[in-house]
């Protein structure tokens, strides 16, 4: 009886059969192999090894988990603080809440500005931000989110290019939450509130050689060309105000350089 480990007369190996089945052979090579296959008991046995394995897998009965996964997923989609950080509203109800919260923040902001002495400078100016000294009041952040507290902000030094970073607000510390496929999420805690933090970052990011490409009241996106000759760019997303009850806590998401600065 022919066995898949026997030797084929044309010296086709098991991996050649795997390559053929996985469309890894060139058209010409595939044609040659297909002409040979019906005449070779060894290669046929190897092909059968794959097909019978596939049949075994296909006969497996997989549990239906759809409803259960969807229910759990919906719950997590509507939770403000999942581990990946909340980046947008997830339902109409949440959208309304967001608008109300936004209006409330704006009202408080306007009231604060109106009550400030006339010689005060704007809160959005970096010159008005407290210097990064130990005397700055620490940010109000959820201690549970910071099992480790690395002083300063997440590292911003460039890859394959000049080590240009940007400054972070006073008394900043951070924790590395997760990374996957070149995307790095950090939770950051800084002195101040969402408005002052985003205002600071709007000043410090361009000063660090990055270009701001989009901003809202609570978000900021910036890009930095790391190696222009190769078209590599890094990206950073800043999200403030997404940790309700903790005004000093915000998210920084870095995307490692890719081969295309203009998706």
């Amino acid at each position, binding site marked *: 009886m022919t066995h898949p480990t026997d030797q084929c007369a044309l010296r086709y190996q098991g991996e050649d059969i795997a390559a053929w089945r996985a469309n*890894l052979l060139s058209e010409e090579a595939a044609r040659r192999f297909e002409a040979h296959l019906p005449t070779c008991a060894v290669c046929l046995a190897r092909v059968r090894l794959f097909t019978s*394995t596939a049949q075994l897998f296909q*006969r497996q009965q*997989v549990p239906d988990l759809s409803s259960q996964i969807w229910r759990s*997923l919906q719950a997590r989609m509507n939770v403000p603080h999942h581990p990946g950080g909340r*980046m947008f509203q997830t339902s109409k109800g949440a959208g309304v809440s967001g608008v109300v919260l936004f209006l409330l923040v704006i009202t408080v902001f306007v009231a604060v500005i109106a009550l400030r002495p006339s010689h005060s400078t704007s809160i959005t100016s970096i010159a008005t931000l407290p210097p990064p000294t130990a005397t700055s009041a620490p940010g109000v952040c959820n201690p549970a989110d910071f099992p480790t507290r690395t002083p300063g902000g997440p590292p911003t030094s460039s*890859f394959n290019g000049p080590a240009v970073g940007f400054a972070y607000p006073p008394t900043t510390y951070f924790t590395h939450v997760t990374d996957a496929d070149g995307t790095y999420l950090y939770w950051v805690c800084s002195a101040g509130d969402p408005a002052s933090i985003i205002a600071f970052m709007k000043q410090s990011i361009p000063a660090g050689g990055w270009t701001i490409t989009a901003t809202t009241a609570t978000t900021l996106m910036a890009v930095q060309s790391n190696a222009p000759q190769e078209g590599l760019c890094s990206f950073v997303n800043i999200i403030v105000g997404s940790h309700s009850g903790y005004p000093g806590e915000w998210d920084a998401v870095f995307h490692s350089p*890719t081969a295309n600065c203009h998706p």
Partner: protein
Amino acid sequence: MLPFSLTFPVARPRWRGRFLFALRGAWDTNSGSTSESFETFFRRYEPEITRYLWRMTGDEQSAGDLCQETFLRAWQHFATIRSYEKPGAWLIKVASNLALRYLHQRFSSARIVIPLDDTLGPSTSDHGRRIVEQDLVRETLLELAPRARAMLVLREVHGLTGNEIAQTLGMPRTAVKMALWRACVQFREQYERKGGRP
């Protein structure tokens, strides 16, 4: 901890770049109608992702958790993913990463062995035989190294090409054919050693 460490090669495959740009879609906003579309998206792709993760992990709980995590990430980047020609490929890639990481963390020092139930021993009925066969296939599959398991399932169940497997698992295209063959032979040898029918 460095976001831009030297571990990232300069010459990155172009598909990987596209994947990273997909992640940047997190910046886009979603609306109520997006939420409805996401459910349609979920209903369409979830069965395939669950099947894959169930075979990868061998248990419903882990498969469900990882599937949920996969779609949570899809939700975060949905505005971009929905415009992809093959959003399923993105999902499989994320599911693979999650599953491999999970298996590495949880079971690096201990093999998962789900013993056959003695009461299901040799059976003459077709139904009984099917149950035994299913358990045997699952047990054997779980004994393969996670990457070999992923490769075999992606190829033989989900029909991915060698190039797609290479992209999904982040391995050189040239290594796929050899690894696929070895995984298949290893699976069959172990399956038959346990009494599975050739």
